[in-house]
């Protein structure tokens, strides 16, 4: 049987769930020489160091671990956010002009636009001119929605409402790109528009989310008018803490009436 040598000793490759071992603890080194030095190097980076070699190639466990992580990341892009998740979050759903994942990936320009009919639905179902409009997008990482939004959304709202800031009607956008923010803002005219959107997954996590926020967002705003909180995940900035930070940033945007490079925060 193939075994993964972790720093804690031998682990059973079939039952350990390979992808749950932090890279810092994932090791194929079987020599105890300079063990403490080796451990310090491993601890210092999530990169795949200290994995040894057979011939000039990777050991089986390291090769399989890489493939498992890469598959998970690629899959996170291609997956759809299940309707169940949208329902559990209490959101209604709309779709951009993209008809499929393929179109969303190859036509970022369509991923920010809605049909007239969709615009009408959003306009009818949402409160207009709230202080803040928050919506959720699948972006490049569907699993990030279920992994983070249930913690983030209520935390953001609780903090904003305590400050007397009104939050608009939330909804979910399928095949969503970041610049959907511009389209939503032109429809509902909030002071601040914020999208919580899945970010391109790497091998460290396939559940990572970003928040893109803009004050008085418009079609012709600059990219640098966005304020961004990225790398939100259980291995990056914890979603609960990120939510609290986002609420504070939104509050600062409303006070300073600006966002992006102009915002002092």
């Amino acid at each position: 049987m193939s075994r993964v040598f972790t720093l804690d000793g031998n682990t059973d490759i079939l039952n350990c769930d390979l992808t749950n071992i932090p890279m810092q603890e994932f090791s194929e080194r079987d020599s105890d020489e300079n063990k403490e030095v080796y451990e310090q190097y491993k601890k210092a980076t999530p990169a795949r160091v200290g994995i040894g070699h057979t011939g000039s190639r990777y050991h089986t466990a390291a090769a399989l671990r890489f493939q498992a992580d890469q598959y998970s990341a690629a899959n996170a892009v291609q997956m759809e956010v299940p309707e169940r998740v949208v329902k559990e979050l209490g959101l209604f759903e709309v779709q951009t002009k993209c008809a499929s994942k393929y179109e969303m990936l190859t036509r970022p320009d369509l991923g920010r636009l809605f049909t007239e009919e969709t615009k009408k639905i959003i306009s009818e179902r949402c409160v207009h001119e709230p202080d803040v409009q928050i919506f959720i997008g699948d972006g490049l990482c569907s699993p990030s929605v279920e992994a983070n939004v249930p913690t983030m959304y209520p935390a953001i709202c609780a903090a904003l409402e305590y400050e007397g800031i009104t939050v608009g009607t939330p909804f979910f956008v399928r095949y969503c790109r970041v610049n959907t923010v511009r389209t939503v803002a032109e429809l509902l005219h909030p002071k601040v528009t914020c999208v919580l959107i899945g970010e391109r997954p790497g091998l460290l996590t396939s559940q990572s989310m970003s928040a893109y926020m803009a004050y008085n967002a418009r079609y012709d705003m600059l990219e640098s008018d966005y304020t961004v909180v990225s790398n939100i995940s259980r291995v990056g900035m914890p979603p609960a803490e990120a939510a609290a930070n986002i609420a504070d940033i939104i509050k600062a945007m409303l006070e300073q009436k600006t966002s992006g490079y102009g915002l002092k925060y």
Partner: protein
Amino acid sequence: MNLKCTLYNKTFAFSSVKEVLAKANEPKSGDVLAGVAAVSAEERMAAKLVLSELTVKELRENPSVPYEEDEVTRIIQDDLDMEQYEKFKGMTIGELRDWILSYDATSEMILAASKGFTSEVIAGVAKLMGNLDLMYAASKLEVHAHCNTTIGGRGVFASRLQPNHPTDDLRGVTSSLFEGLSYACGDAVLGLNPAIDTVNSTTDVLKLLYDVRTKYEIPTQICVLSHISTQMKAAQAGAPIDLCFQSIAGSEKALRSFGTSAEMLGDALQMMTELAKSQGPDYMYFETGQASELSSSSHFDTDQQTMESRCYGLARHYHPFLVNTVVGFMGPEYLYDGKQVIRAALEDVFCGKMHGLPMGCDCCYTNHMQADQNDMDNLITIMAAAGCTYVMGLPQGDDVMLMYQSTGFHDSQTVREMLGLHPIREFEQWAEKMGILSNGRLTSRAGDLTIFR
């Protein structure tokens, strides 16, 4: 100038050289997104046919961006070796392709001639070549550059050690650095992409890389790939610098979107001749990648492969030590899948070497493309066969800062062993002295990052 042809019992007419070049391009999702791609395979073939009959002169006289409006065009045109140009100007692109592939044309002859070709001419030839043509032609060309060591040349397959870390933590960087060195990676450069683009952070990492290079007497060069102005400030304040890096693009407007200009690149080169810790005379390091112009709407309705070739026309003005395409970083809207990435990499390496550049390739993909590590295994092998000068070396190919995958420390060694290639000679001797390599193979000591103590 004939922009019309008949094919499949149909007449195809094109309105400009630019349109012919774009439509002759092999399929790329970025050209579709830009609205410049051929609408059908038939139209693509017609464009190739028309392109094959256009002359070197016609392509030179129809640059993708007007001379008056664009400094990149001006550099490409003004740098032309007019003697060579006069010799070749009447040749068609099809004839030029034949000549380059012929036994008559040696590396020296092609590289001398190519000084008389604009980047559009070279891009045009690439469009008429199949993948094996590109590999064969690129592998013929022998290009050298010198900084602390000499890169390029036959039988040498170098690697850049890319020890990136999510927060530029020096200990984390060191882990990846030692790991890579222990696999005999890093002969092209020890080069970090910083997470934090500040003078302080750049200086800290440069010092670390410099200390490691000098302490272990590694015959290589170091670089921190922050913005060129950040590196210049750091160097002027005394940070040790061997190579000065910048991402470049094929139009003045695109360069501006990167916050740089031809003048700034010239200033940096001038500064390097005074401040560099390395020997030179080649001090610059450029990265490119198809579609970076499109992503900043500064492509002037030109296809991405032609714009990429123009990057090399700009690059050769500064006689860089390293140039590589970061071929699969831009995403599926520009290169959709492994097939498109492999094609683009071959075009880039061919065009780069045709410009006399020591062309390397970051064989890479993002997780939202239809590609996986097997495509990179293919690509790195193809690149080595095509005489690509260097590739990237990362811990198992995974970049934990930029969140994409490239090639691993193990991979360049595997390819070297298979194809009988070697690291840069002095570096190989160093690795042998360190007990990492023996007879071209990894020793049992290799891969142990604790040997650097």
